């Protein structure tokens, strides 16, 4: 162990109260940032979950569509126009919209977001069907009044088993499949049905749809097909899945201010943490000023002293991050089945570590300013 590390670590552990204050500051800050960014990430994923699970090469959406959840209707002729474009293999209509779900046995109503996609052998290979089915069968959605719900919303919907019934907009709905983990960031439950069922529940005319999912021919170039569709179809948006994801994210995360609030809280956490660490490091450096002056007097370079302070900051960061990481993991587990779980990816974990180190390094600036102005001759005065 080099003496820089020895000196930094012993200075740090010598004053346990101050070390605890530093670590608490870091932990508080990093847990807050973890929760905010974890929820942000979770939010971001949920926003695009439908787009992520749809097997579309290109999306055709009504003009000025801002997100998957809010779109007008497309006319049936636009589907046929799309089908006539060179390179297009399939154009699958999707109906999606908010509806009212009345719980069984005269229960109260709750809003739902209904997604209808072609089901059955005649409907082709793709669509937007429920995934992570844990009970029942997706193909049973082709039966009249059939719907699929997610387990996490069973209580909210008043139905938690196959065969359970309710009403959607005065039409009967019968649960034939149950999924796990298809959650909505708005906390409004997602309910899946067949295309025809969704049209009936939402009152959408039979030829119309909210989206057309385009599948291109295996030998066709997706970008070229997209450009041809954009040129041939008027009053629609032709989007790649990536563009549609970005548009949905932008709308929900930034246009509504929800994401900005989460990021704002995260930034606040970083600022508070930095200030706490800066204060404790500054106070610690002031306490050890005589020692730093001695180091300077016996000929140490400024860099040597800066190393001691930075190593002290880095050690604080490692200790604080380890504890914050453990709390973060506990939060991830605790919220795994919650409406808005905290998500912690390896990239986010690495980013948080880098953030912790950066925060502590920035916090060390005030301490560094003190030692760079140190007068070695002060050792003679004491």
């Amino acid at each position, binding site marked *: 162990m080099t003496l*820089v590390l020895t*000196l930094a670590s012993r200075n740090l552990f*010598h004053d346990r109260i101050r070390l605890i204050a530093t670590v608490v500051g870091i932990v508080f800050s990093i847990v807050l940032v973890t929760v905010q960014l974890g929820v942000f990430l979770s939010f971001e994923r949920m926003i695009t979950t439908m787009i992520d699970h749809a097997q579309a090469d290109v999306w055709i959406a009504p003009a000025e569509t801002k997100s998957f959840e809010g779109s007008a209707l497309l006319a049936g002729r636009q589907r046929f126009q799309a089908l006539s474009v060179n390179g297009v293999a399939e154009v699958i209509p999707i109906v999606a919209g908010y509806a009212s779900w009345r719980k069984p046995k005269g229960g109260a109503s709750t809003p739902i977001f209904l997604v209808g996609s072609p089901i059955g052998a005649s409907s082709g290979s793709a669509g937007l069907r429920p995934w992570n089915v844990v009970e029942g069968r997706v193909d049973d959605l082709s039966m009249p009044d059939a719907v699929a719900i997610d387990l996490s919303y069973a209580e909210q919907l008043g139905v938690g088993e196959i065969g359970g019934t309710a009403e959607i907009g005065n039409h009967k709905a019968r649960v034939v499949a149950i999924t796990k983990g298809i959650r909505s960031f708005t906390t409004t439950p997602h309910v899946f049905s067949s295309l025809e069922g969704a049209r009936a529940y939402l009152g959408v005319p039979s030829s119309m749809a909210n989206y057309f999912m385009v599948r291109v021919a295996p030998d066709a170039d997706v970008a070229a097909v997209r450009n041809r569709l954009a040129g041939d179809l008027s009053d629609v948006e032709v989007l790649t899945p990536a563009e549609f994801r970005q548009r949905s994210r932008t709308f929900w995360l930034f246009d509504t201010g929800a994401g900005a609030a989460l990021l704002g809280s995260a930034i606040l956490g970083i600022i508070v943490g930095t200030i706490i660490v800066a204060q404790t490091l500054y106070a610690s450096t002031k306490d050890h000023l*005589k020692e730093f002056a*001695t180091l300077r007097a*016996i000929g140490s370079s400024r860099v040597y002293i800066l190393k001691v302070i930075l190593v002290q900051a880095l050690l604080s960061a490692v200790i604080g991050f380890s504890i914050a990481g453990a709390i973060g993991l506990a939060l991830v587990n605790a919220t795994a089945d919650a409406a808005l779980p905290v998500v912690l990816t390896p990239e986010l974990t690495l980013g948080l570590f880098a953030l912790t180190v950066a925060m502590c390094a920035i916090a060390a600036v005030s301490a560094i300013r003190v030692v760079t102005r140190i007068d070695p001759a002060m050792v003679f005065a004491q």
Partner: protein
Amino acid sequence: MTDIMIEATDIVKVLGEGAGRVNALRGINLSLPGGQLTLLMGPSGSGKTTLLSVLGCMLSPTSGTVRIRGRSTTGLDSEALARLRRENVGFVFQSYHLFPTLTAAENVRLALDVRGDRSPRARVKAEEALATVGLADKANAFPRELSGGQQQRVAIARAIVGDPSVVLADEPTAALDSENGAVVMTVLAKMAENPARALFVVTHDPRIIPFSDRILHIEDGRVVSDQRRDRRNGSILTLKYASGGAA
């Protein structure tokens, strides 16, 4: 004939500005040869500490030149001065200034570490330096576990471990009782037997005069007397009794 380890020529140091301006040093001329223990004595406010700071390259003179082993310190920036200190000067302070969280051996090794010497040999050198001051068995003790005299001896070991040309000591016995003071001065006097090293000790303590080879008296920023002592018989030869001039 021994080499001059440190030389000060026409050193003037003005501290403060305006009404608070003080002429701390008024034309000091001084040469410290190797193999000698020189005492600097004088009343409070006479300029002892200022002269020590200037000789130790911690304070730049307002005018005049300091040369360490022939190398002028004039115009050097703070990093170059720090380098000059770590390569040529060892310090012993009144209140020891040991690092409370480091052991005696680590405190000594620190003087090598700041020079970039982190070899296994550095550990051996630190232990040898501790043995030289009679503290071989205290290598793993923390300062709080040592007496004042032992702490000062650790500080001396730290000052000499890098084999400096000059050791500057500021009131090294002031915080010690006479017994410990004598032990510390015995160690310092032994260090001064090395012809390649000059020891310069600022003190108020007349009890340490018998350990010295030379005694300088300073008053109002001027060296007013320069006495050579024969350590064997204690005889004193006064070379100078004047204001300013060479010492």
